[in-house]
């Protein structure tokens, strides 16, 4: 039996400041010790699966998603996240706790995000653009294939070795997208849409890697990879600052009939939101190894953990209570 409780149990402590949410954990304000690990469930994944740009949005933006999603359930989820004092939905980009998204869902999301790359910056010449697009399609096919293989591995007699193999292959793909993000951030101009796209593709690969290792019950390896990815996120996203990105975004804007200061303030609104989301991603990634430590300490298998979370029908977020 996995000692899950619901976030509402911690609401009063968070409200009075005796408990603090950081990343995907709730800690005691006095001792600094972990009280609970936040963990998304299958409910949250269903709610967020059709919303590609949501991780970069403020919590309040979720209500504007319209009838395409289960609005009441989504509103409930946002209320939980607000109670937990999440400022943005950045954490959902990599999964609160570990990602419980199914491999099929990851593949669908990957397609949705990848399709955004077609709008490459128009200052890239046509030939180069075609080459890049072909390269991106090649990686897209590879990741899609790996995610399909991961989903298929459930029916293998010996799934473990297959999941480990896929995890290694996904590491290569994650490396490709990491390189693209690094390159993108090294330019004098900042293409926010492209950045968001590559970041999502990159984090999907990493989430799938870790899930594969957890399903293979390689929790120590999953923890170490979680640490490594957390360090990579820090390496990539630490240098981001809203003002620098805003200035670089303006460099991308050809229409300059508006005063620079006005453009700067306009862009700053977007980039502040973006950086805030990325900080949430970093915090959540930094606390993921702590969750894996707890699973290891309590002898909770990766498969049992995911089965419980995927079977949850009501709560979008559960708390793995370390005090129970």
């Amino acid at each position, binding site marked *: 039996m996995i000692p899950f409780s619901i976030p509402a149990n911690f609401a009063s402590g968070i409200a009075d400041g005796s408990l603090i949410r*950081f990343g995907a954990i709730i800690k005691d304000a006095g001792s600094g010790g*972990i009280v609970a690990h936040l963990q998304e469930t299958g409910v949250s994944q269903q709610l967020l699966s059709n919303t590609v740009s949501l991780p970069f949005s403020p919590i309040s933006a979720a209500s504007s998603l319209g009838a395409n999603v289960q609005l009441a359930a989504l509103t409930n989820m946002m209320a939980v996240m607000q109670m937990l004092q999440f400022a943005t939905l950045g954490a959902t980009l990599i999964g609160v706790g570990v990602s419980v998204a199914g491999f099929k869902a990851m593949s669908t999301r990957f397609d949705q995000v990848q399709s955004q790359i077609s709008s490459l910056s128009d200052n890239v010449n046509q030939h180069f653009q075609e080459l890049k697009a072909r390269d991106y399609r090649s990686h897209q096919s590879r990741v899609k294939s790996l995610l399909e293989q991961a989903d298929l591995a459930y029916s293998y007699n010996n799934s473990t070795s297959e999941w480990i193999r896929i995890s290694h292959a996904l590491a290569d793909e994650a490396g490709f997208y990491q390189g693209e993000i690094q390159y993108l951030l090294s330019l004098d101009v900042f293409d926010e849409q492209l950045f968001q796209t590559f970041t999502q593709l990159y984090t999907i690969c990493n989430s799938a890697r870790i899930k594969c290792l957890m399903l293979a019950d390689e929790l120590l390896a999953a923890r170490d990879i979680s640490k490594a990815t957390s360090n990579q996120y820090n390496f990539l996203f630490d240098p981001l600052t809203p003002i620098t990105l805003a200035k670089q975004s303006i460099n991308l804007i050809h229409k300059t009939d508006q005063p620079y200061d006005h453009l*700067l303030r306009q862009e700053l609104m977007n980039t502040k939101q973006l950086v805030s989301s990325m900080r949430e991603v970093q915090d959540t990634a930094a606390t993921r190894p702590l969750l894996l430590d707890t699973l290891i300490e309590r002898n909770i298998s990766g498969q049992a953990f995911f089965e419980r979370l995927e079977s949850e029908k009501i709560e979008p977020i559960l708390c793995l209570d370390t005090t129970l």
Partner: protein
Amino acid sequence: MFWFKNKKEVIDATPRVEDKPIILAQPNNLNSLTLRRNVLDWKDKHITNIELHLRREITSLMQAVDYELDKLSVIDSTFKIRKIHANIIQPLTDEWTQRESSYLLDEAQKELLSIHGLVLDKIDHNLEIGEHNSNTHFTDAATAASLGITGIAAIPAFASASAVSTSGLIGLFGVTTLSLPIAATGILIIGTLFAFSGFKMSSIKEKAIKRYREQLHLSITKSVLGDVDNTSPSLSEQLQIRILTASNYIINEVDE
């Protein structure tokens, strides 16, 4: 460089990050993760604040510079630009730079102290505003001066011409008077030239100051906020680097 202010006192009073080896994935290191996030937020906030503050406050420096330029005489704006630049403009920008830099770094420092008890080193606040580096104001000044000289030189020239004419008429009329029509014409022309020259003097002075003002504004903007061609870091960049250095320093310690 970044350093601990009153190092001994800080060591005695506040637990330093470097005293605690950081091992991720252990609950007791949560404080380090929180510190890391706080420092990143601090960096984001103050790097942004520096840019926005300087963009806002640079107008006060421009106004102060304009006020001084408006007081310049023709002579000042023509012959004493270098002196005025050194004695009035540069001290004005130095004082402004010092004041704004101190304010911004003090604000950042106060907040950082509340996060971890660390302080920023003092920055070299001096900002060299590029002196009027174009020769166009000298062209303006030379034009104004030469027009003025033409006006003054015309007086004896026309008086002489009038006198010659008059002397030619002395024998004719036997009088030692100026030929009134010639003298009148000369006075009219001289008067016109004087009026023209006076107008041009004022116009060219304005033009010279306007150009100087524009170049000064441009130079100040580049020095304070920077531009793509800047070879040396602007004030904004220098202050932002201070924040970035401090942030990197702490984060490196947290990550070790």
